[in-house]
């Protein structure tokens, strides 16, 4: 174990490991690119759906079932299926990652909207606010902590899962995991895993800090 950790340390810190197209810096960039684009696309799709369901109270059934359907969908199967259908392109990677992230964002946004006190909503209406004003000035601000939790959860899942992009021959940190697996090189696999976990944690902490900075008056929930 000690030997392995020492090798891992050497692997992670050696100059040559960080440079070049197969270097950590480049793989890290690819991994971030896949993860951030997929999460952003998922947010663009999922936030309006969650807000609509939460605001109107209609389609709650959809929101709840979407969550368990999304959790049940095997990402590996999906990526292979889309790969076989669309050929060698980034489409399978993004389709799978977005499909993974959408349910978390929809259900958390919906839950956040539902948690808004109906009295508060009625008071806003009573003051003469229009539907979109109630949504923008009352409901969304109050629902934000849970919406952010959903986004953070989605991002963590996407970063961890973006590893499989390497399975359909793309880059990212998953390259080390899959190449290491093929070469029976445990240090490389371990290095890849440690880097993925580190990226997920750092991004999560950054989002948490952003959340605190933006909404000082509200305590951030523990995700």
């Amino acid at each position: 174990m000690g030997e392995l950790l020492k090798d891992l340390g050497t692997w992670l810190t050696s100059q040559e490991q960080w440079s070049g197209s197969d270097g950590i810096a480049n793989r890290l960039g690819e991994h971030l690119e896949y993860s951030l684009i997929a999460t952003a696309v998922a947010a663009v799709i999922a936030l309006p759906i969650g807000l609509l369901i939460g605001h109107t109270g209609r389609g709650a059934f959809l929101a709840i079932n979407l969550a368990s359907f999304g959790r049940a969908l095997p990402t590996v199967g999906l990526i292979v299926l889309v790969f076989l259908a669309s050929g060698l392109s980034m489409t399978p990677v993004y389709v799978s990652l977005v499909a993974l992230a959408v349910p978390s964002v929809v259900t958390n946004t919906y839950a956040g909207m539902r948690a808004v006190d109906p009295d508060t909503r009625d008071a806003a209406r009573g003051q003469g606010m229009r539907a979109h004003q109630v949504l923008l000035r009352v409901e969304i601000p109050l629902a934000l902590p849970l919406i952010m939790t959903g986004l953070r959860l989605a991002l963590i899942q996407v970063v961890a899962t973006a590893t499989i992009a390497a399975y359909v021959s793309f880059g990212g940190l998953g390259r080390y995991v899959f190449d290491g697996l093929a070469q029976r090189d445990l240090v490389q696999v371990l290095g890849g895993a440690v880097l993925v976990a580190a990226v997920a944690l750092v991004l999560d902490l950054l989002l948490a800090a952003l959340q605190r900075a933006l909404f000082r008056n509200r305590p951030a929930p523990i995700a």
Partner: protein
Amino acid sequence: MTIDREWIADHTGELTELSVSHLQAALTAVLLGLLISLPLAVLAHRVRALRGLLLGIANILFTIPSIAIFVLLLPVSGLTRTTTVTGLTVYTLVVLLRNTVEGLDAVPAKAREAAKAMGTRPLRILLTVELPLALPVVMAGVRIATVMSISLVSVATYIGDGGLGQLFTDGFQRNFPTPVFAGVALTLLLALIADTFLVVVEYVLTPWNRKGQRA
């Protein structure tokens, strides 16, 4: 992309076998996860100092890609079922631990104090008052963990196991979508059946939550 129905008809035996093996791995992991997370959750609930530590460790484990966890277990347990189940158990822990702690936190203090005032011992309070009252939240965690495990088993296909996941590797290598499609569909079906079963279990275990529904 066309689905070859004949292939599916010819392989029902294999598909059934893989489904059973798939479900077996997922359910064993959830069961083990429950056995491990329950005492840890009680500990995290009672000892505030341990709470952040335990939940923090669980969160970090959750960020490690599942493929990596399986591969890292290889030197320990080899290309076996044990590796699959151990890897899956790690993932169930995150959900089960958090939900069980939250469930215990949500038990009304009055219920606990009433039991204490009647002279009930701490262990009995835990077993007969706290855990039953925490059950709906715990069960929500069990449902999430079960569905998640069923979906994750297929990742173990990279280490030669993975139940229905083997269909993904097979289809990918032969450039043949039918097994992949069948694998995805069966995984979703298994998850749906397991989830429905757990809803029924919860209904049976929490008779006090049913009051008024029958009127």
